[in-house]
């Protein structure tokens, strides 16, 4: 087992209902490092995939990100899946999940502890994105299961969080008759020099926490005039191992799902410009999100626009997609990439040049993005 990754991928063919575990070629892992570059090499035609970077799910600032990929017309597009999806995928026993084909009947994919199953989605019938998440968690008996779900619109929800999918991942899932992808990590991944890795990650976390100051909640991503329009927004939360709690829980007014996680600043800004002053943006967004929609409608033209609107730190964002670090966090606080590269070297037991990481990321994400 290589350090920081398991070296294992899950191949799912929905047409034949087959699941296969395969080793990732060691040379490919070394050349492509992880995250988006690996997905670009492994995603099938008209398929989707999810993958970890080497630092996804490790104790360092912003290590929450799994990359999602959609292949369409020979073009790969990427989005960052946040919250705890990256952590759970990292510990699921598979670094990468590659999905192709179309299921005859609606199904969901259930991944845990180096095992995966395709399960009938009968119990999810008629349920929106949020209803599907609740139903899967209830059926599998664990609130911590991370669920990516699809419904009517083009965008997926990841455990009640929307706004990250500007690449039509959810719509492609629906077209494949794949209602949800559920992931729970019960496995383990090796690290070289674990004590040094933990000490370095902790030092970086403390330093980042100090840099964040009082910045908190989705309002901290918005102009004050826009933030004022958000009603019913409460406690903030961070994704896994991130010192920046940029998500806020918001009230829906719905008894079954009284709260959802709001980090979709792009939709909020769009709605504040295009809806009357008396409109309740939060309630309207809740309705959009649970149906798989975002207020800005069509898919984005490029990866950099997903979650990182206006951030502009292209090299940092590109590195995030390779390493598995949240691009929003890296770009917004302009995190010192050299520290992450040093940490990667400790955890792998060998150095990887910073320029290799940046050029690898930019070569993929630059396509139509800048």
């Amino acid at each position, binding site marked *: 087992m290589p350090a*920081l990754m398991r070296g294992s991928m899950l191949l799912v063919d929905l047409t034949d209902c087959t699941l296969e575990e395969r080793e990732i070629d060691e040379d490919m892992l070394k050349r492509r490092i992880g995250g988006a570059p690996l997905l670009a090499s492994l995603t099938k035609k008209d398929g989707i995939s999810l993958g970890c970077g080497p630092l996804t*799910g*490790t*104790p360092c*600032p912003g290590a929450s990100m799994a990359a999602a990929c959609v292949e369409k017309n020979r073009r790969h597009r990427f989005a960052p899946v946040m919250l*705890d999806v990256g*952590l759970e995928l*990292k*510990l699921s026993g598979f670094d990468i999940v590659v999905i192709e084909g179309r299921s005859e009947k609606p199904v969901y994919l259930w991944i*845990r*502890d180096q095992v995966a199953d395709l399960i009938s989605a009968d119990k999810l019938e008629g349920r929106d994105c*949020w209803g599907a998440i*609740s139903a899967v968690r209830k059926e599998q*008996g*664990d*609130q*911590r299961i991370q669920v990516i779900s699809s419904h009517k619109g083009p965008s997926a929800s990841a*455990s*009640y969080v929307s706004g990250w999918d500007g690449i039509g991942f959810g719509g492609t899932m629906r077209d494949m008759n794949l209602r949800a992808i559920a992931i*729970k*990590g*019960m*496995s*383990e*991944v*090796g*690290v070289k020099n*674990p*004590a040094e*890795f*933990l*000490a370095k*990650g*902790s030092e970086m*976390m*403390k330093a*980042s*926490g100090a840099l*964040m100051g009082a910045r*908190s909640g989705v309002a901290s991503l918005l102009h004050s005039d826009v933030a004022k329009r958000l009603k019913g927004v*409460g*406690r*903030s*939360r*961070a*994704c*896994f*191992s*991130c*010192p920046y*709690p940029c998500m806020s*829980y918001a009230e829906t007014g719905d008894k*079954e*799902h*009284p*709260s*959802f*996680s709001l980090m979709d600043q792009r939709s909020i800004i769009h709605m504040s410009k295009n809806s009357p002053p008396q409109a309740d943006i939060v309630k309207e967004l809740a309705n959009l999100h649970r149906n798989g929609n975002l207020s800005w409608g069509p898919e984005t033209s490029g990866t950099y626009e997903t979650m990182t609107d206006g951030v502009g730190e292209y090299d940092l964002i590109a590195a995030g997609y390779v390493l598995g670090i949240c691009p929003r966090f890296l770009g917004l606080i302009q995190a010192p990439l050299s520290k992450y590269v040093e940490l990667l070297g400790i955890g792998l037991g060998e150095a990887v040049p910073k320029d290799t990481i940046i050029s690898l990321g930019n070569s993929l994400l630059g396509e139509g993005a800048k």
Partner: protein
Amino acid sequence: MTQLKYIPERCIGCAGCELVCGLQRDELLSTMSSSIMFHVEEERGYYGIIVKRKGGELLLGRPDGVEIKRPGEAAGGSASAKPIKMRPECDMCKGKPKCILFCPTGALEEE
């Protein structure tokens, strides 16, 4: 001996403490042997932690406060791959707890 203390109003729910504990104990990335379990219910806007402390007592860190449950008292919480009662007790890392060193907001302290 000192014990772990949780300050809910400082916690941002990053759950890093859970993984750090597992890494410290097993020298692997894993949460299964962590003495800390993160608990979250997104649809209720709720998160907190449970810590298995010395003597098997459980610290229940909820958004609205902290409660200590002695062994044998019902602790609640949702089902999990490995329930907190089956996990090892926090030994404070036999020195400076690594979760305290990692936490970016000071939500964990020694008491």
